[in-house]
């Protein structure tokens, strides 16, 4: 099994590097930050443009630039932005913002999604099952940039109803908030609820559909009938024998769900004014900055790598047939 996981890991690492290179290549080919500079009024002097070109290493071929950049990344240097700031300085805070959003969102989403799926499968064709089906169909057909503003409106209603501005949805904490760490945590939590819900709803809908059909598969299987025939309690049959098997296909879906999460996260950050990695991608494209775009791609690729590898580990843990 260790061999299997190690092979997968190597494969993922290569994928990450190629993906980052591809993003860097495409960005370098399509972006033209110097053109933006030249549009300035009054136009900058010739010497300034030449200096900019040199600073951006435009004299070198793209693969060489990439190797140069990657060499820096290994030492923690992510290059400089078009406006000559250090990319690395912005990286950590932005990563923190995104990870907080993603981790909470995905945890809530996976857990609630699995529960919802299992409940609908056990109570198949009951009202709760139909309600869950309608819910996931509607949510999966609604893009994040529609859900987000709608939840904002909903949060305003809740605030009206509560009489105080309890739910916040612009930024991630009150500017200049001063208090103990506990109060600060509470403050952050109030900002976290609505954006997390935006992300989690999609994840819940996505996972619950698959969990439902995976669970239905298992419910109709012989080994479950055997388990109940030998007198196990229903709870034990469903959870120990049923759910464990039904979770196996979910493990493989986990990596796919992550793509959904990252794109959804970009919209969520944009809508709620969180300065995370998704927001940075938009900024990077708008300022035509290859280094920023490559850094964001690397971040995304590493996240997909971790989730993909985690789902391999989960798969191996759940399915004894892989452990050979």
């Amino acid at each position, binding site marked *: 099994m260790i061999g299997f996981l190690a092979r997968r890991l190597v494969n993922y690492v290569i994928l990450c590097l190629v*993906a980052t290179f591809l*993003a860097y290549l495409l960005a370098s080919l399509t972006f033209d930050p110097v053109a933006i500079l030249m549009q300035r009024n009054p136009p900058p002097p010739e010497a300034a443009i030449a200096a900019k070109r040199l600073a951006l290493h435009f004299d070198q071929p793209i693969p060489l630039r990439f190797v140069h950049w990657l060499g820096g990344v290994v030492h923690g240097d992510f290059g400089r932005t078009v406006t000559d700031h250090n990319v690395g300085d912005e990286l950590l805070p932005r990563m923190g913002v995104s990870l907080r959003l993603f981790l909470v969102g995905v945890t809530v989403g996976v857990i609630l999604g699995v529960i919802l799926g299992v409940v609908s499968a056990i109570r198949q064709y009951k009202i709760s099952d139909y309600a869950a089906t309608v819910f996931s169909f509607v949510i999966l057909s609604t893009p994040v940039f529609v859900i987000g503003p709608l939840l904002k409106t909903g949060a305003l209603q809740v605030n009206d109803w509560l009489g105080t501005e309890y739910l916040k949805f612009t930024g991630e904490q009150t500017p200049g908030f001063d208090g103990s760490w506990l109060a600060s945590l509470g403050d952050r939590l109030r900002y976290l609820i609505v954006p997390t819900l935006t992300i989690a709803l999609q994840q819940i809908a996505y996972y619950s559909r698959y969990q439902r*059909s995976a669970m239905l598969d298992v419910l109709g299987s012989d080994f479950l009938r055997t388990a109940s025939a030998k007198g196990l309690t229903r709870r034990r049959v469903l959870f120990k024998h049923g759910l464990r098997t039904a979770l196996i296909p979910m493990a493989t879906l986990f990596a796919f769900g992550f793509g959904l999460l990252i794109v959804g996260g970009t919209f969520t950050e944009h809508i709620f004014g969180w300065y995370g990695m998704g927001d940075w991608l938009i900024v990077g*494209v708008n300022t035509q900055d290859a280094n920023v775009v490559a850094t964001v791609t690397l971040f*995304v690729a590493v996240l*997909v790598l971790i989730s993909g590898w985690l789902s391999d580990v989960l798969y191996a843990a759940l399915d004894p047939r892989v452990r050979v």
Partner: protein
Amino acid sequence: MTVTIDSDGSGEHANTPGGSASVSPVDAGAPGDLRTSRAKLVVRRFARNRNALIGLVVIVLLYAAAFLSPLFAPWSYTELDYDNFLVSPSGSHWFGTSKVGEDMFALVMRGLQKSLTIGLLVGLISTSLSAIVGATAGYFGGWVDRAMMWLVDLLLVLPSFLILAILSPAFKGKTWLIFVLLLGLFSWMITARIVRGMTFTLREREYVKAARFMGQAPWRIIVKHIVPNMASLLIIDATVNVGAAVIAETGLSYFGFGVQPPDVSLGTLIASGTESAQTFPWLFLFPSMFLVVFVLAVNVVGDGLRDAIDPNSAGGRRKDRRKARKEYQDAKDKARANAPALAGKEAS
């Protein structure tokens, strides 16, 4: 992709892996269909599904509205009403007006037109691509297959949203058809995986072998014998891909990476309406509503099609459910036992 998790096909969002793979590649020649043709059977089964029918009607109505409404609407999308800025929906402005006096109804219809056209084109392009790529990889196997699967893996690590965002400066100011082409070029991966899995089974069938022994060229076998036998899967996936394409298009246009002004799409309309979603809700709600209703209808129709085409699904023979599930389970266990490595590969 021989391992699927879709047993009853009764509600999967097929735009995700494994969703539609349970459709049997072996449609023709089932001993059950005596005189009724298969097409008739599918149509009849589809018509029995009320939700899917409603979805189909909604889709037709939306297309009709998008393309015919300029004929009867009081305002055109280029006209500005200087007397009415930001008025709420009324008799003369059905969906209200924007802050420069554009008629929202005309704008939404114009945006719907563009989004639906792009969705249809991208759905067709990406499904055709996935049929060709998936069937080629599955038919030849070996390094062709490995190369394709690796490419699919790569594109999963590098989401197409990211690629298109990066490429967007290249088609800024150019025709939206380039955008359509690129969107189609980067959204075939998931269907291709499913097609590849089905080709593995089809490749071993007698008629394909016969064609091979008769000396037919591989591409001819793929085009004439393999792809047509996956028609049902491809129809379902094309349907669902249209919905996914519309979501992708509006998402990119939302950030200004897709459809560029002066063109409008539902995405650009939603983006400009978002800031005032709480104060002037009609700017945001109407384009959003049309987007969600369209995608929902497409997904429901895709689901209905799956039920109608898949002989084992819930919409088909209710009485045989248990038997069908058991058969399915057996087939799946066999596939799993044969290919644990393949199952692991799916995770990538």
